[in-house]
């Protein structure tokens, strides 16, 4: 009894109460921002949401319009980026997990890939500008898609490798024991077992690039008009949000909020779906 009432014991308990209180507060603080940002976004975004947003082009300053051309541009460039980046990423991840798991090459690639994964996206924009826009002499949707593809690759490499490593070796041994060559073992057994996880990786990559702005600013630039020409500048939602939000026009600012809402909903849906797929495959 004397021990529990001693000043030392009380001080330790007090210290514990204070720090644990801080941990509680910190969590509330972190969640507060999520709630604040989402609440603001939903409020401002939904008040500007209408059918016109999806059916009309971006307006000149001072008049109403929609976001059809940037939505289309974002879809086109995101799709292309995924089509370019995914095969490359999957193949590289396959090498790292299946053929050269303990290679020196794999170790270097894994390290470099992790650097690419967190490299500032604006630097990737500069890279594509240098090798493509500066060489051809004009901005283009191809350059934008390529810049996004460079962001897709490391995400897909990482998840493909991680997921293939999780495939039990007994499956591989079973495939080998019935005489399957390695290529068929990988495509028919390993890929099939890791399918859900690899799909998650692609979805996360889409979520990542659908909000990327910096690499598009000086590759795809922007376009006020409807354009499907891949060799010309193309509008994208993030670039339009950037331009419209910093403008002094009320109509443009409103559209920027609406665009921000569309992107956020898309990204959150993608990451929640990805999470569901991942947890479902884990429970199987």
């Amino acid at each position, binding site marked *: 009894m004397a021990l529990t009432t001693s000043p030392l014991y009380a001080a330790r308990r007090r210290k514990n109460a204070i720090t644990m209180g801080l941990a*509680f507060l910190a*969590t509330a603080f972190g*969640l507060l921002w999520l709630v604040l940002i989402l609440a603001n976004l939903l409020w401002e975004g939904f008040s500007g949401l209408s059918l016109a947003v999806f059916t009309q082009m971006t307006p000149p300053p001072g008049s109403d319009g929609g976001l059809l051309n940037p939505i289309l541009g974002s879809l086109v460039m995101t799709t292309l980026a995924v089509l370019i980046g995914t095969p490359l990423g999957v193949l*590289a991840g396959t090498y790292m997990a299946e053929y050269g798991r303990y290679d020196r090459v794999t170790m270097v690639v894994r390290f470099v890939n992790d650097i690419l994964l967190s490299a500032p996206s*604006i630097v990737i924009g*500069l890279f594509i500008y*240098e090798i493509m826009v500066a060489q051809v002499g004009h901005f283009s949707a191809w350059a934008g898609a390529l810049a996004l593809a460079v962001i897709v690759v490391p995400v897909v490499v990482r998840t493909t490798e991680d997921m293939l490593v999780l495939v039990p070796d007994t499956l591989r041994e079973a495939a080998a024991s019935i005489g399957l060559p390695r290529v068929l073992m990988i495509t028919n057994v390993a890929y099939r077992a890791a399918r859900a996880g690899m799909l998650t990786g692609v979805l996360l990559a889409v979520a990542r690039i659908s909000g990327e702005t910096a690499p598009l600013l000086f590759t795809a630039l922007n376009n006020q008009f409807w354009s499907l020409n891949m060799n010309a500048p193309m509008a994208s939602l993030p670039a339009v949000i950037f331009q419209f939000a910093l403008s002094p026009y009320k109509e443009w600012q409103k559209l920027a909020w609406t665009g921000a809402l569309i992107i956020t909903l898309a990204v959150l849906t993608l990451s929640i779906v990805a999470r569901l797929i991942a947890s479902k495959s884990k429970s199987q």
Partner: protein
Amino acid sequence: MQPAGRGPVVDVALPDRRVGVQTAVDRARVLQKLKLNDAGFRYLTRGAAIAVLVILSGIIFSLIWGSSLALSKFGFGFLVTEAWNPVTEQFGAISPIYGTIVTSIIAMLIAVPVGLFIAVFLTELCPMWLRRPVGIAIELLAGIPSIIYGIWGLFVFAPFLQQYIQPFLIAVFGPIPGLSTIFAGPPYGIGMLTAGLILAIMVLPFITSISRDVFEAVPPVLKEAAYGLGCTTWEVVRYVVLPYTRVGVIGGMMLGLGRALGETMAVTFVIGNAHRISASILAPGTTISATIANEFTEAVEEIYTSSLIALGLILFVITFIVLAAARLMLARLNRRVGA
């Protein structure tokens, strides 16, 4: 090509010898084909893996190539000059570098303690049923694109700071010598403090989720032993969990720092894009990435473009060092946990 294992199974040992020979020849051909395919696929995947290396070296070389004009003209002076004047074609990188470092420091000062405390909450205090939802919510915060933070910072957060927080800071710290220069000047709303705070919100989820992961890797028996001695939760965290995970936690912080240094859009909206070094963190400034985002499409002169690419190179070098250090530390921890 007929995949092995599909189609009817025929064996060499067939009653009719001619059919048997034919089958054996077919089989040899199929096997030869499979062997080629196997080697082909191996080289294809190896090529893809090497392509990842090519991308990184491509980035480095293109940045060096693009910035060579500016670097040869200004030399080492580029790193230490404050001038940034497109008209007279005088460019120096020190004020964007300064802005990048100051905003990142502000972000880390806030995000590191808060992130660690959230991780402590998630691993030690939080009831089991709440762990997943809170963890997912924090990770959703990481998934929100940076431009959303930017637009929110510009329209909501900056006016709020201007009206309530900044006048308060000026009033409180104004009379204190030393601190008065850090919190000097009118409350603009936008500026380095605002950018740093937005960055803090952005890197918080990264630090939290990595810290949580490494905290969870602490063997329960170590914690149980400490609890068994009568340690409080705080003492367990302070004297068992943190020492055990130190390398990982530092790695996570560096990863967050890498994000903060390179973050573009959120900062561009709220930094004010002013090429000068102010002692006051309430003043507008600029960062490397914000300068590039704001000015690159306007830059027509070759030396202007080249100077901006040189800024990009500096940013890449800084983040490369930080990220490489972070990855090496996390890898070291993983090895220890794996062993």
